[in-house]
Structure formats: C-alpha cells, structure tokens
C-alpha cells in the first residue's frame, strides 16, 4: 500500500492483483481508477506511486 503526495490516491496490491483508488473531496468517497490489475504470470511483492499519483510501479522479484 502506498499513497501519493496529496494522499488523494492510494495503490493497494496483493500478490496477484492491484487496485488504484482516488479520493473525491467533498463526497467522502473513494473511487477505483480503472479495473483491478491482474498480474498475469507475475507475483507482486512491492508497489510504488509517484508524488503526482499518475505513475505506479509494481515489483515482481525473480
């Protein structure tokens, strides 16, 4: 789990899936951006998101 600088976006990942959520100020609601990312043949172990929240990185060792 990682957040961007404004803490308006959060990326959460498990071994096989990842989701990115954006907080809509004033509505107290989180909305998922896009669909759940499937790893395919990879196994996620680490995630990162940049300050602006428009770039994410998913690490899969091996």
């Amino acid at each position, binding site marked *: *789990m*990682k*957040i961007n600088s404004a803490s308006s976006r*959060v990326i959460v990942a*498990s071994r096989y*899936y990842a*989701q990115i959520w954006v907080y809509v100020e004033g509505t107290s*609601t*989180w909305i998922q951006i896009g669909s759940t990312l499937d790893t395919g043949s990879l196994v996620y*172990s680490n995630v990162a998101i940049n300050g602006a929240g428009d770039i994410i990185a998913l690490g899969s060792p091996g």
Partner: protein
Amino acid sequence: MLSLQSRRPRNRQKDAVGASRLLKNNPNLAYFEKVEPDIDGDTPGTEDKYNCDAGSFGSSVATNDNGSRIIVGSPSGHYYAALGMVTILYNQNSSGEEVWVEFGTIDERVSGFGSAVEMNSNGNRVFVLKRIDQMNALSYVSSYELDESTGEPTRHQIGQKLFEFSPGCSGFCPGRH
C-alpha cells in the same frame, strides 16, 4: 532527513517488546544518528503502554514529511491477543528533548489491522491495511483524517473501506501487500 526503523522481537513471547526507532541525518555528518529514546510499545512486566499487543508494536511505521508525527502498527494476530490497532504520536519537542505524546489510537480490534500504514506529508491523513491472517480472513484498507481544530485530537474515517477481499470471493487471496 529522517529515517525510521522498527524493532520486532523474533521470539514472540508475551513479554516481548516491540518498538520504533528514529534516526536523524545530521547534515554535517555522513551518517544517521539515533534519536533518543526509542518509542517502546510496552515495558516488560507492566501494562501495555499503548494498550496494544506490545509484541507486534512496530510491525509497520510511517511518518509525515518533517518527522513530527509517526504512526505505528501493532497488528497482532496471534493466539493471546487477537486484535490489531495503530498508535499515532506527535513530537512535543519544546526543550530540545524528544518527547513523543500519543495523539490517539485507531483500534478496530481485528487481527492484522495495522500490518501496513501510510501517513501523508502533512501528517493529517493516515491509511491502515488490515491483512488476512490465520485469525481473520478479510483484507481491506481504511483511511482516516486527524483533526485538531477543536483542541482535542480526534480522527474520523474518510470514505469507505478499500480493497475489501476475503479468500471466499472468487479465489482472491491477498497474502502480501
């Protein structure tokens, strides 16, 4: 620059003590100096300082940008203390001495809560991951805002829980976040 370490006992006995340790980069030196004292979750033989499972205190840590606030997770999740919570502290550094004061706790009383934590740059918004474990087969992320406007530190959840999954839903089994 501030660095953060957590100490988690390898031997998870009831009296084992978890802690968080801060290190500060002295700009004149090429290394980090330890900030005294450690933030201990408990002292062996006494009541848990932060009313948490001290053995898992420090499993996750995060700070705000200037290092004046810290959030520490104690997800627990073992047989004698099946609860999880996080503790938020701020540095009341008025005399040059490090004095960490409890801002508040977020206590969901479910094992795995506090497995991972994040804090925004201002230190007024925190995120807490509840990870699946042997005690509770559900995973989610909760977000909270900290409010000091009334003079009394409070926190409230913002929005809904995110990433809610359990092993029962289409075989989705988050195991590591």
